[in-house]
């Protein structure tokens, strides 16, 4: 057991890796998360909603190949999920709140950016704009 009280010091290393095949790998992760059972988080979390999973798959497959930074795919206790991109203080979250709505967080406090809003899951242009914002800050 690694036990220590620390704040969030980012370990040294390169920026995020590019994954041109991100759609396949994300869909594989979605398949894995689809197997989660009730109480998967020990706190009464619900199994993921099949309609949310299907909408998330369609969304990922709709993104252009130029979006090459693979997101983390994170289950939520309510039975939905979110895609997360992290690079230091810069964070982008796409929470698939319903099969039709993405609730997003665009976050970079040092840059004065703390934006939260929603968009239709079919609004791929909006999704690409946000992901490109994230990618623009990770090219170090």
């Amino acid at each position, binding site marked *: 057991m690694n036990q220590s009280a620390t704040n969030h010091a980012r370990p040294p290393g390169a920026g995020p890796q590019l994954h041109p095949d991100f759609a396949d790998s994300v869909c594989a992760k979605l398949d894995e998360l689809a197997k989660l059972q009730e109480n*998967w988080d*020990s706190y009464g979390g619900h199994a993921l909603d099949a309609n949310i999973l299907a909408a998330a798959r369609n969304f990922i497959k709709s993104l252009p190949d130029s979006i090459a930074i693979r997101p*983390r795919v994170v289950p939520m*206790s309510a039975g939905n999920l979110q895609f997360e991109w992290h690079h230091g203080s810069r964070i982008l979250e796409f929470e698939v709140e319903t099969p039709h709505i993405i609730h997003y967080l665009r976050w970079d406090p040092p840059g004065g950016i703390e934006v939260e809003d929603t968009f239709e899951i079919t609004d791929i242009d909006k999704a690409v704009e946000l992901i490109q914002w994230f990618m623009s800050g990770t090219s170090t």
Partner: protein
Amino acid sequence: MSSASPLVPQGPAVDSAEHLYRGITSINWWVSEEQRPSSAAFRHAEFSVDIASLAGSPQHTLSHLTPGSGVVSFNCGQARQLGFDAHQEPDPNHPDNHAHANVYNLSSGNQIKKAAQKLVLLCSVIVEPNFVS
């Protein structure tokens, strides 16, 4: 946490000076490259914590979580300023856990995710998750 619980606090408010332990019970809730939890660990209308002074140690919290889980800690008063209001209440799944409290997220609309992310930044890592992949 019980999903059947009402979202109105029933127990006494936890003192703002207290620190609270939150379990990181899924590998998906741990952003290893940044050594911090995902906001998903706090993206609930209500979530369970243990009051650190009553728990005595993080091992108390770990004892009723999935093996490999981690523990992060945050200050109750600072969290309350973000809209996370902790109340000491029993855990129906672990009625012997005298340290249990529920944290109620008072944020709504386009403030929910920001509040969860700000809570992430309050957290100190007490026990890093160590799930077998």
